[in-house]
């Protein structure tokens, strides 16, 4: 059976170069805090990786701190800066309605502590509006946190504009760039980003390693107290191998990025066009600007999990926004934030491509999806109702004529 991995927004396959770097670095097992030669070697390996990643973001090595992934970076950025805000008498944070749970749940925790949070709407097209941002700012606002690109629908937010507004107003700007790093060009200095979260497993690096960019001069309290690692800001014996592998993966991801993105976007567009030919389907969020690999569609009368498991049975790994694992009966908060009704949001499918996908993958996906949807709709009482209403309407229209 053909196998197509189209769940790259969930996680990616490690690149061969990154994997080899990991394996090799494992043998250089010294603790980077140890003073002997093995430790010093590890120390330098981390230093080099840090500088590489920092450079790729337009920042300096001493502004980059390694973490265990995107969630930790998000938690640290927000909780850490919130402590700072308290001291300055600020208590208002601006975010968006469709952030990742790493942000949203952290913000809820802060709300319980008395912080106030404004969640900007993202409208049907999936973008925050600069005017909404400006209108939300008060003299109590200390932090704006808006994701770079949405993980479910791939829409890329107006980060540079948000950065300008925040810098002008003296508000610190964090962006959860977990879906963006390695996929779009980022320059934290030019874009006036103060804090940025990234996670290596989203760009063909290892899982369990991420980083937080902290612009020089921004003070965060520590989330993980302890040893003097990461210049005293993040305790824990450094994961040298993963750090090195992350840097290799990022370097590789950014090589010929435009070219790769063009190729991936062409596949994405062919997928979108093909899927939208299916009756009662719709694209979630605007077509552009959108991550080169993101396809997010809803099919009426079909439930997302059943759809993705059907795809899995024919070798296609995909995802649905229907939050099946979360224990909630609600569909994804992202799709609801776009204003989709529950019953439509339940029918969502996310296909996320990477440069490892091929045109044949697209052909294959397009060849099997219509049949799967037909099968599921055939047994769906919801679809039956839709069809009945349709024919009633046709009759009504006929009557009206």
């Amino acid at each position, binding site marked *: 059976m053909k196998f197509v991995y189209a769940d790259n927004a969930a996680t990616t396959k490690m690149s061969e170069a990154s994997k080899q770097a990991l394996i090799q670095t494992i043998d250089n097992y010294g603790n980077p805090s140890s003073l002997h030669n093995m430790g010093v070697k590890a120390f330098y390996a981390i230093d080099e990786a840090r500088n590489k990643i920092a450079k790729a973001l337009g920042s300096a090595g001493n502004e980059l701190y390694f973490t265990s992934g995107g969630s930790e970076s998000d938690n640290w950025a927000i909780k850490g800066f919130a402590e700072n805000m308290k001291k300055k008498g600020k208590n208002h944070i601006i975010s968006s309605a469709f952030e990742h749970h790493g942000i949203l749940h952290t913000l809820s925790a802060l709300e319980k502590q008395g912080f106030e949070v404004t969640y900007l709407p993202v409208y049907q097209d999936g973008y925050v509006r600069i005017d909404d941002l400006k209108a939300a700012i008060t003299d109590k606002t200390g932090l704006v946190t808006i994701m770079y690109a949405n993980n479910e629908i791939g829409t890329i937010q107006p980060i540079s504009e948000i950065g300008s507004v925040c810098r002008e107003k003296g508000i610190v700007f964090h962006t959860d760039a977990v879906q963006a790093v390695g996929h779009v060009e980022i320059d934290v200095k030019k874009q006036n980003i103060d804090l940025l979260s990234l996670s290596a497993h989203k760009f063909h690096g290892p899982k369990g390693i991420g980083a937080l960019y902290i612009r020089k001069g921004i003070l965060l309290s520590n989330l993980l107290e302890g040893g003097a690692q990461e210049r005293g800001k993040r305790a824990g014996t450094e994961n040298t191998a993963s750090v090195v592998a992350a840097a290799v993966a990022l370097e590789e991801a950014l090589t010929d990025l435009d070219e790769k993105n063009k190729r991936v976007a062409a596949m994405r567009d062919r997928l979108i066009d093909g899927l939208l030919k299916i009756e009662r389907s719709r694209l979630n969020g605007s077509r552009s600007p959108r991550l080169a690999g993101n396809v997010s569609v809803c099919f009426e*009368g*079909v*439930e*997302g*999990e*059943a759809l993705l*498991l059907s795809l899995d*049975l024919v070798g296609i790994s995909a995802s649905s926004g*229907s939050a*099946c*694992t*979360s*224990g909630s*009966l609600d*569909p994804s908060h992202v799709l609801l934030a776009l204003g989709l*009704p*529950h*019953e439509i949001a*339940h029918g969502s499918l996310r296909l996320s491509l990477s440069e490892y996908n091929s045109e044949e993958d697209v052909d294959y996906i397009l060849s099997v999806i219509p049949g799967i949807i037909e099968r599921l709709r*055939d*047994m*769906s*009482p*919801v*679809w*039956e*109702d839709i069809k009945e209403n349709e024919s009633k309407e046709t009759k009504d229209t006929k009557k009206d004529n």
Partner: protein
Amino acid sequence: MAYSDLVMEHFKNPRNVGKIDDADGIGEVGNAKCGDIMKMYIKVKDDIITDVKFNTYGCASAIATSSIATEMIKGKPLDEALKLTNKAVVEALDGLPAVKVHCSVLAEQAIKAAIADYYKRKGIEKEVDTSCGEGHCCCNRQD
């Protein structure tokens, strides 16, 4: 979260899918807002369920519980079918992830609703408890 092999088997090859045009009873539970709707059709002869079919909109476990539930009541007397519990359905499927147990409740309720409908059509006065016992909010269709 992961499904048992049996759940996947019933999802892949659901038994008794379809409609019965001249059904003696039809039960429909769940609502699209919550992502699950089950519609159960039964034919009854001499208080025995001679045929049963279902249509389900929902996740893999909703389809699998519908499927196995129809198998469990086909050929059974109504009284026995009414005694089918969601627990029995879960066990018959080698278990369900905790977040999916509500699907088995839906299956139980769909059967009860279909039988209640049958009694109603026949004018038989019989109490069928179609309330949603275990605190699940999504058993009643309310599009």
